[in-house]
């Protein structure tokens, strides 16, 4: 018989869980405020660690005023929604979100390819070696080729995301398809299913929640490639703005932008989890 307290079985209650989970956020903010105050006591014009009021002021400007390089102007009598829609933050968010969602749409064929590769041996043999090789190519190293081939337009940035993320999604879907027990496939055929019934009504439905999870876990990679594309060649977008402001040491806008991107990704992640739960009530995550 072993004695002693087992930490493995010590579960925090609700209050403790809330306090503990927010502690690092509060600590981080506290440390930042302290550092900002200290730097501003030494140099009132410090731009490296802007104070919270300074950042809030800059965020307000970013949200409700057009960018300096934007030719659009806002009338004196414009209301808050009109100001927001003409503002720099919204325009940058819209540009990045458009690229982001186009890229996500282009992942759908990747899912179908992985499904067919996993289920139909001939398709698997035809594509698997190529996809495995393709997966090893560093997408960012293709950037110059993409700019030459597709120009510095939208297409090259979207293609960068597609090339960077699709092989992972294809291979994930392929492995998930292969992991469906063979009994299920045989059973479906004995019930009168045809090849595509098995593919879409048996396998796809079973792997769908895990595929969505896989895409969800790759959202950060999608954003990474999107930011790389925007930072190098773009005239709008969140990453373009961050890269532009870096030259002017505009930390008062860069930090809110970084937090805004994290918040957006967090919301997309939460939404996808919610959709997954609603669409697949039978699914229990391991």
């Amino acid at each position, binding site marked *: 018989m072993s004695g002693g307290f087992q930490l493995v079985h010590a579960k925090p209650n609700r209050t403790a869980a809330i306090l503990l989970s927010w502690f690092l956020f509060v600590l981080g903010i506290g440390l930042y405020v302290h550092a900002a105050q200290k730097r501003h006591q030494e140099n009132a014009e410090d731009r490296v660690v802007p104070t919270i009021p300074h950042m809030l002021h800059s965020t307000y400007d970013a949200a409700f005023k057009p960018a300096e390089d934007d030719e659009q102007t806002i009338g004196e009598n414009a209301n808050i929604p009109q100001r927001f829609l003409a503002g720099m933050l919204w325009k940058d968010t819209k540009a990045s979100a458009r690229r982001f969602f186009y890229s996500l749409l282009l992942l759908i064929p990747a899912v179908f390819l992985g499904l067919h590769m996993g289920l139909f041996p001939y398709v698997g043999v035809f594509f698997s070696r190529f996809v495995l090789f393709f997966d090893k190519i560093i997408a960012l190293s293709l950037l110059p080729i993409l700019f030459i081939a597709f120009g510095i337009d939208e297409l090259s940035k979207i293609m960068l995301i597609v090339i960077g993320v699709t092989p992972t999604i294809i291979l994930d879907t392929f492995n998930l398809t292969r992991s469906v*027990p063979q009994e299920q496939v045989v059973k479906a055929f004995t019930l*009168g299913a045809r090849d595509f019934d098995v593919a879409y009504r048996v396998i796809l439905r*079973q792997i769908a929640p895990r595929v969505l999870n896989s895409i969800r876990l790759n959202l950060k990679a999608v954003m990474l490639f999107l930011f790389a594309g925007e930072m190098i060649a773009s005239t709008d977008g969140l990453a373009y703005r961050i890269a532009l402001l870096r030259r002017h040491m505009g930390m008062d806008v860069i930090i809110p932008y970084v937090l805004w991107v994290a918040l957006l990704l967090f919301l997309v992640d939460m939404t996808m989890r919610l959709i997954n739960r609603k669409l697949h009530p039978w699914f229990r995550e391991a």
Partner: protein
Amino acid sequence: MALIQFENVSVAYGAPSHPVLSNIDLSIEEGEFVCLLGQTGCGKSTLLRLVLGSEQPCAGRVLIDGVPHNQPDPTCGYVPQKYSLFPDKTVMGNITFGPEVSEFNLFTRLTPRYFRRRREFRQKAMQYIRRIGLQDADAHKYPDQLSGGMQQRVAIAQALVNRPRILLLDEAFSALDPGTRRDMQVLIRQLWRGTGVTLVFVTHNTHEALQLGTRVIVLARETPNHGSHVALDLAVPSSRPADEVSRIVARLDGAAGSAREPEEFTSAVGDSTPRDLAAARNLLPNGI
């Protein structure tokens, strides 16, 4: 003509010198309840998969109605031990899956006729749900909300709803507790009598095989490297009293060197396959 015919069938994974099954000659008539009995690894499930068409022999042929059968189709219903239900579908969805895919493909499912027929499929499924002893409310549950016994009941209903000519059960009751297992044995006998389906039931439990089947086929290996062959083919009267079954089981298993009292076998669900079949055959009473 026999419904299922094995003609000198051999199966090997890897080297043909190490077959799993060798030179199986076997025929199963329409309407029989055949129990395939044998130790773990003797090739019972392989034999079943040959009937199913999901596995091909390296020699010989498997015929259904005189025609070679080499891929799974609705001729055979199938209930495996695990993964017997589609986890993403409710009980209703699992049972109506067969009728739906048999009649409608991905595109014709979008027609008004499909929605009319779906109502009929659901009514039919509900009849099956009641017949297997489930409640109406269970129709909307997912497999993981059901007990193991309930899942296997649904799996049997799912396989029978398309009215296959042959129903194949691969150790379908092995993972169930003794009480549930007995209930399932009663159910499968009732369904077999009621539908007239030809039933092939794989088990490693001698008692279960003798109690359920009209015929028991025992697979055995002569040596470790030699594929299993049909060692014993018993016609079993279906009205055999339980104590007589227990006696036969005790003799078969006693011959295998595991001297257990007959009473123990009434509740035993573990591996009780005869090992020394020649000795067991000699011990069997006349008329079996």
